[in-house]
């Protein structure tokens, strides 16, 4: 919510709402007297220079009245929304606090009310509460409340499932305290967003009530009342009705736009921009000739976010056909962002720059967009930790796989489906034809991950990027997926970039290991040297702190004190320095990644 996006809708909404607030404060002070001045000489006039919107049956200037009526209209809408919101939040929160029976009763009532048309509910309440502003406000409040109640219930239910609520319950914290202390503060943001939107709605609804004669009664007047008065004359002098109508419309639009924009800003975290366009930085001269055999060649890859956040810092990586390279490092070291940058998937507002970013012999940033998409679509297969994120839950598995072939390879639907079944069989999903006709949720976790791999195999992948593909799976399934990945690499000759924070898995699967720390590569070594030949203190500590089936149980495990610097505060020198036992004054300068032995490079001043 802190940074509003500067979209036209956002700006328009903010401006309109600001204007309305100013009008509500200043309007009656400036035009108050004029709006009340009765002029028997100027009754029921149309547009004129003195009265741009005409006058009413007592000769009062309608423009002034419209400008003055803003305060009452907004104030009533605000009160109505607050009443509705308070009642709604209480109703919505009650089921979490009440005993089960009573809770069910409240939930049932709310469900019934939500299904009831809002305007009817408002009019019904207004008629009972009595004609006039008070009745209308209560009526609108009653109409707004069920929506809030439902929203509170849904949000509270999702937070109530959180572990920290379970913990609080186990600690014996009372239900009421859990609600006020843990649940409500954590759902406040969406509720406030809903409030802004509800305010726009209440404004329109109140105007509607006044227009129907159920709301504000003379001598008070709000926009709805002015509209009601002017409506009878709309054919003779349309201006008298247009003024209040325009005011209502502008205010309603303003609040709705602002609400939408706020909501989008709050949920912006995951909007992929698709085109966090890459820029070539250093001249090609310093980079040397591109490697003609490499499937993937990345030089000086950097990913930055606004605010000096640089999670990937000058990373270079080359992968040959048939090679499985493991990318290991702790959480937040930039592994996933490296993968995203290669696939052109860095989310907005991230910026990618690289000296070179070549896939299958072509620099992806120099290709025309359509060709780039085709290259990525057919040559690159991505497998993520959560297979559900890669599969559309609403579509059948076979159809999703087939889509790859119809879109990128122009296959007919029947051919594409047949190939999908063939690929599912290839990754050893039992009864592939049946499974192809099922939805993702009908498959087990391991099967879903196989289906995602099969999706990558619909084309002829040259590079497979697998980001923690087995982290959500248990060991036995993990082993099968690893075996499958290795077979696929062997038979297609594709290159694989395998990302994991689990150094044991990397050690088992990969040919070569690349170790990342705070956005940089600190060591690159053949897998055979991982267990006892690592040269960087961080890699060595990682290996030492890993318990295996032979670890001596009588000794404490090794661990690294401290934590990795966040991507905004990575020091200029060696990022590992404040956790490193060997650190010296020299380490304030950045150690370059230099050859150590054959096929082994390390970035550490102490590695000799």
């Amino acid at each position, binding site marked *: 919510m802190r940074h509003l996006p500067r979209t036209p809708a956002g700006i328009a909404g903010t401006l309109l709402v600001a204007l309305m607030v100013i009008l509500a404060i200043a309007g009656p002070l400036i035009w108050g007297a004029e709006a009340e001045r009765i002029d028997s000489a100027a009754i029921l006039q149309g547009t004129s220079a003195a009265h741009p919107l005409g006058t009413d049956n007592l000769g009062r200037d309608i423009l002034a009245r419209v400008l003055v009526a803003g305060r009452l209209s907004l104030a009533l809408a605000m009160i109505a929304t607050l009443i509705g919101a308070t009642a709604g939040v209480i109703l919505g929160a009650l089921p979490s606090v009440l005993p089960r029976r009573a809770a069910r009763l409240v939930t049932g009532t709310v469900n019934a009310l939500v299904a009831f048309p809002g305007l009817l509910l408002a009019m019904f309440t207004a008629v009972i509460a009595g004609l006039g502003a008070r009745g209308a406000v209560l009526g609108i409040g009653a109409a707004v409340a069920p929506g809030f109640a439902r929203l509170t219930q849904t949000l509270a239910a999702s937070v109530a499932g959180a572990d*920290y609520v*379970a*913990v*609080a319950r186990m600690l014996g914290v009372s239900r009421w305290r859990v609600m006020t202390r843990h649940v409500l503060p954590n759902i406040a943001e969406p509720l406030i967003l809903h409030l802004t939107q509800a305010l726009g709605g209440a404004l329109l609804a109140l105007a509607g009530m006044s227009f129907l004669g159920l709301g504000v009664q003379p001598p008070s007047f709000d926009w709805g009342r002015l509209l009601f008065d002017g409506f009878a004359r709309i054919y003779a002098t349309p201006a008298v009705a247009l003024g209040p109508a325009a005011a209502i419309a502008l205010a309603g639009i303003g609040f709705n736009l602002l609400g939408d924009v706020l909501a989008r800003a709050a949920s912006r975290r995951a909007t992929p921009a698709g085109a966090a366009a890459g820029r070539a930085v250093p001249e090609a001269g310093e980079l040397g000739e591109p490697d003609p055999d490499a499937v993937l060649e990345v030089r000086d890859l950097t990913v930055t976010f606004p605010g000096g956040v640089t999670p990937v810092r000058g990373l270079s990586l080359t992968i040959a056909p048939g090679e499985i390279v493991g990318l290991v490092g702790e959480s937040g070291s930039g592994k996933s962002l490296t993968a995203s940058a290669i696939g052109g998937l860095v989310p907005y507002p991230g910026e990618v720059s690289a000296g070179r970013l070549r896939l299958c012999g072509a620099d992806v940033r120099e290709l025309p967009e359509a060709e780039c998409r085709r290259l990525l679509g057919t040559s690159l297969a991505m497998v993520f930790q959560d297979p559900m994120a890669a599969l559309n839950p609403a579509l059948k598995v076979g159809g999703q796989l087939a889509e790859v072939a119809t879109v990128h390879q122009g296959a007919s639907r029947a051919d594409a489906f047949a190939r999908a079944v063939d690929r599912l069989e290839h990754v050893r999903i039992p009864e592939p034809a049946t499974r192809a006709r099922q939805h993702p949720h009908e498959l087990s976790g391991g099967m879903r991950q196989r289906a995602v791999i099969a999706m990558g195999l619909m084309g002829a992948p040259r590079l497979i990027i697998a980001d923690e593909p087995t982290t959500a799976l*248990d060991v*036995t399934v993990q082993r099968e997926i690893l075996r499958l990945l290795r077979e696929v690499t062997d038979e297609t000759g594709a290159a694989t970039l395998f990302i994991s924070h689990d150094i044991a898995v990397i*050690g088992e699967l990969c040919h070569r290991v690349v170790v990342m720390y705070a956005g940089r590569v600190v060591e690159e070594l053949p897998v055979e040297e991982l267990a006892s030949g690592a040269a960087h203190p961080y890699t060595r500590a990682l290996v030492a702190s890993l*318990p295996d089936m032979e670890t001596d149980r009588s000794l404490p495990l090794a661990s690294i004190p401290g*934590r990795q610097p966040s991507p905004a505060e990575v020091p200029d020198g060696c990022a590992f320095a404040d956790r490193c036992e060997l650190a010296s004054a020299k380490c304030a300068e950045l150690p370059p990644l230099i050859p150590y032995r054959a096929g082994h490079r390390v970035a550490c001043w102490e590695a000799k």
Partner: protein
Amino acid sequence: MIIKNLTVRFGAFTAVDDVTLEIPDGAIVGLVGESGSGKSTLARAVSGLVPYTGAVEGVDPSRVQMVFQDPLTSLDPRMTVGASVAEGLRLPRAARQAEVERLLTLVSLPVSLAERYPRELSGGQRQRVAIARALGVRPALLIADEITSALDVSVQGAVLNLIRSLREEIGLSMLFISHNLAVVRYVSDVVAVMHRGRLVEMGPTEEVVGAPADDYTRSLLEAVPRLGRS
């Protein structure tokens, strides 16, 4: 304490099927099995978070505490570390501060961390806060459900060392759940293996790991990834 014939059903599905498991005083019992085998459901039943049939004997249910996999979701993001740890303490206000400090020291965290928010801590530090909070109610049994799975190897060691020192220093009984056999082997005195809701094997750690009797246990041992085995 002992868990006797514990069964949990969700509709027609039996998540935990007639499990009997003894947790000797002051011992760490490791529970392994694949995801969906019912480990977490068993833990939640013993903690009183899901209804079950059968019995949990020899322990007051209010003195069972649980620590979860992801410390970020098990700590309220809007409460300071100190407030989170103090929340479960049944002590007069004046004594709380001192107790919070004692608990943080017990899990090897600097006392100054009490002022910070969970997002300002590393994963390992957060997990130690969660453990400190659970220790605050002086539990008779601590259930640790995959507490190192979301941690980096570089900090996992510190949490595992803490678990073992807690057993030695305050004689804490523990049910330690993990899918990682190497981790379970390192901390546990006794290992129990669960498969499809049932307990298929149980015995002293070295025996189960060294000479598994059950086929499923053998396949689990087979699947443990080993550095540079290729």
